[in-house]
């Protein structure tokens, strides 16, 4: 586990512990946050916007770097840098899109009557981040011209995209997916329990989301097991 992963895990754990403690103490912080939710949306939109902007800047730098002619000695280092920068671009775009999605979803619940303009702006940012996410595919086509990437309208797009990877890359991808699978199972189960406790303590029913999270858990595990079983 690298330093960035550790830092993200610590931040998420602290947020979850904070939310549980706050819930235990009568949701004082949560209620205060909801009372001035427009400020929270504004601050988070700026944070998401900065991450989005950094992703754009990074993708421009990446394009320039990939067009640069390099000497024999520095070729490997530059290519390694390109691989890492591309991963960073997708990471920044994906985090900013998730932040905007969260703000639109919660803002729509809390602020749709009082601050519809703010929600509309954040929705615009969500669309921009979504398009930037799509654009990372075309960026990959530009920086890895030797690879035979499928066209986006291809019926077997996902399958062909998987086949673009060589065995070593598939091995890395498998390790990453397995890690995600190991995280998502206990995490979803914990969130279901948390939503249940939240419903009981606050009287605000979370049954709708609990049902969907349970369905998600069943779908994920069934897909995983059936894929293995049928091979």
């Amino acid at each position: 586990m690298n330093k960035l992963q550790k830092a993200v895990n610590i931040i998420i754990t602290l947020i979850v512990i904070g939310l549980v403690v706050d819930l235990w103490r009568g949701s004082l912080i949560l209620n205060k946050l909801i009372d001035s939710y427009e400020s929270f949306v504004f601050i988070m939109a700026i944070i998401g916007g900065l991450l989005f902007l950094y992703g754009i800047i990074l993708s421009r730098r990446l394009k320039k770097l990939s067009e640069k002619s390099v000497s024999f000695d520095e070729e490997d280092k530059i290519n390694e840098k390109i691989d890492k920068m591309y991963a960073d671009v997708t990471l920044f775009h994906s985090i900013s899109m998730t932040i905007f999605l969260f703000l639109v979803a919660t803002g729509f619940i809390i602020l749709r009557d009082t601050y519809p303009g703010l929600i509309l702006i954040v929705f615009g940012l969500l669309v921009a981040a979504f398009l930037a996410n799509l654009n990372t595919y075309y960026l990959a086509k530009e920086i890895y011209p030797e690879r035979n990437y499928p066209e986006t309208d291809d019926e077997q797009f996902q399958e062909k995209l998987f086949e673009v990877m060589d065995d070593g890359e598939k091995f890395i991808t498998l390790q990453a997916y397995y890690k995600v699978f190991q995280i998502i199972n206990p995490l979803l189960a914990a969130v279901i329990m948390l939503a249940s406790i939240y419903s009981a303590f606050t009287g605000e029913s979370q049954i709708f989301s609990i049902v969907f999270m349970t369905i998600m858990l069943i779908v994920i595990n069934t897909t995983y097991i059936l894929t293995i079983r049928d091979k």
Partner: protein
Amino acid sequence: MKSRLKELRAREGLNQTQLAKMANISRQTVSLIEREEYMPSLLIAVRIARIFKEPVENIFIFEEDEL
């Protein structure tokens, strides 16, 4: 499994990117094999062996207890 890939690559004066292009694999895969974090598939092992004109078992060396 031990790999002599880095040594052979140096002998031939190739960098990882060049070897990757010749073997039709990614630079990341070359790097993984050199760091002995990934055991290449038979196909990749044969392609690499052909490039260096060496038998596969001279490039990828197994300990007796691994076999």
